[in-house]
């Protein structure tokens, strides 16, 4: 009797580990959009981690050794590509488990023009500024990145192909709906010239036909007089009526911009966690703010 009980308990344990534990794929990502995509596609078959602190820009984050060791133990490490998260060049990660999600469109990366180069020693001129990296703000590219993630998950767990494909189709539909919505919104816009508080909207501008000039303003800091003067000079050659912020700006900044005839809107890139809201919801809201 005791033996039967033990055998039954052991069988139950094996079943539970197969269903809930051992089969789960450990996935680490370098930003929140990739985490969201992997969670949507992988659902219960993946455990996705993105260990960057919530108050940090993941593009310029440098994880400590303990966090890197966690990345090393993952089954898959999803990279954004396009030189995003430069810390990858400074750490040891298992190459065979890295997935560059934007590799499929790398010929279409946007690179920094007019970057200052330097030279020293016997080397030729070189620059440390490279590629624009907020690739997911072009939602057709975001869908391609999601496709690469789906393929990587299928390769790692072929048994769940049907589930991954179904989940990917739903995610792709959501992304492409936003893509079409943005296209129609921009088509309806009478003025396509915009300012951006940071140079992160290059792919958005290219995909949807916006003409964006960027400054380097922090939403939670009041710009200096020098920065206001620079904007004033920019206004003469680029008379935009809207500034896109990556986060809610200070009221004082909104008021002073309004006085210059520039309205403020927020278009969150969501590189890090979006205050508890999911990626698609924030992007839908972003799309609606464009007028």
């Amino acid at each position, binding site marked *: 009797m005791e033996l039967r009980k033990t055998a039954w308990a052991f069988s139950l344990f094996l079943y539970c580990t197969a269903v809930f534990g051992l089969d789960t794929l450990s996935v680490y990502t370098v930003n929140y959009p990739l985490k969201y995509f992997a969670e949507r596609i992988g659902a219960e078959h993946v455990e996705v981690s993105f260990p960057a602190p919530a108050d940090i820009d993941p593009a310029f984050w*440098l994880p400590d*050794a303990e966090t*890197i*060791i966690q990345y*090393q133990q993952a089954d898959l490490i999803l990279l954004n590509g396009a030189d995003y998260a430069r810390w990858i*060049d*400074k*750490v*040891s*990660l*298992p*190459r*065979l*488990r890295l997935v560059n999600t934007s590799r499929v469109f790398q010929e279409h990366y946007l690179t920094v023009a*007019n970057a*200052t*180069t*330097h*030279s*020293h*020693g016997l*080397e030729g*001129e*070189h620059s*440390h500024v490279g590629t624009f990296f907020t690739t997911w703000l072009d939602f057709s590219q975001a869908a391609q990145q999601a496709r690469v993630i789906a393929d990587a998950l299928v390769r790692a767990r072929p048994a769940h192909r049907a589930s991954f494909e179904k989940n990917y189709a739903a995610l792709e539909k959501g992304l492409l709906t936003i893509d079409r919505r943005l296209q129609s919104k921009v088509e309806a816009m009478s003025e396509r010239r915009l300012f951006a508080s940071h140079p992160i909207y290059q792919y958005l501008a290219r995909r949807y036909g916006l003409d964006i000039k960027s400054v380097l303003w922090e939403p939670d800091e009041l710009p200096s007089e020098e920065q206001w003067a620079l904007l004033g000079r920019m206004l003469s050659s680029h008379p935009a009526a809207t500034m896109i912020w990556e986060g809610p700006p200070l009221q004082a900044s909104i008021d002073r911009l309004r006085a210059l005839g520039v309205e403020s809107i927020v278009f969150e890139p969501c590189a890090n966690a979006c205050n508890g809201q999911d990626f698609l919801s924030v992007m839908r809201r972003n799309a609606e703010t464009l007028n």
Partner: protein
Amino acid sequence: MIETLYVAWRYVTYNKIKTVTLVACVTLIGVLPLALQLFLNESARQLLSRAESTPLVMGAKGSSLDLAMNTLYFDDEVPELISMAAAEEITQSDLAAPIPVYARFQARGFPIVGTSFDYFDVRGLEIEQGRSLALLGECVLGATVAERLGLKPGDSLVSSPETVFDIAGIYPLKMKVVGVLQRAYTSDDLAVFVDLKSAWVIQGLGHGHEDLARAKDPSVILDRSDRNVIANAKLVQYTEITESNLDDFHFHGDPEAYPVSAVIVIPHDVKSGTILRGRYVEQDTSYQMITPKEVIDGLLANIFRIKNVLDAVIFIVGLATVLAITLVFTLSLRLRQREIHTIFKLGCSRLTMVRLLGTEILIILLTSAALCGALVVVVNYYSHDLVRVLFIR
């Protein structure tokens, strides 16, 4: 019998020089072929076990032996370098997993092996002390390296210049030891492992210096224009990567053009391996894909051919030694005529004389056999290290 043994023993201990010479000759003749066989068996075992666990190696066209020896045993002879594009080509083929290896530099006489994190998984290497590689400029030591250099996690190790005349060359990199591997009884015990990118920093392809656009010391700037800043030799490049200057380290150019000495290729299955090998047979490719086992088998076949010659030489020398020993005994019988005559006069039979001489020979042979056995045990004990020092590295 005891009396015979006693008299024979007294004789051999009295004639020390003659006995020692005879024992040495017999021991050498016995131990030489046995030790040689042990060495060869151990060499074959070491060479083959490593080669068998490495399915394919991709490298530049040229000596396949140099490529195999450098990739598998981190031999000093560095094959012609290839670029990381080769590893990327393998990834794109979707037929195999590539593991780049860059075994070119040294630190205090031990090879620095730049590779990807996957190498440790493929070779089954485990960390005994400390942790695995995490940041640029860190190194993990093989067990023997740590033991011989007396290093442990937290210590540092400086890379050696490629030549003593490399005065104006690359700065040596001070690497931080973060871990020591468990003993694997392979070439990995004798290597200093770094991330591939750290190896490129050692080569000077990646480096760290203050941002020239915001240089605090204007005297480091030779010329400045709107688009370019030129620094002079005063610009200090960091020789150690620390958490505070890690951000200033950077690489220039296309990473796919960076060099590696070889790529270990792990095919997904036998068919994939065969297809890949076929692709690199053509003349128009600058790469070669070798099967290390075939290369090492060829090397061993040559070694065993040489061994046959050595066996013949040892046989002839052995025969000459036996003849010489026979001559020594014959001559000693002549020298001992008076002694033998005295023994006869004492009433001993001819048989007693034969037993006495036989026992003397037996004592010499047994002593030689004991010595020979002891030497074989010693050689066997050290054969692993001796093979590594004498034959492999």
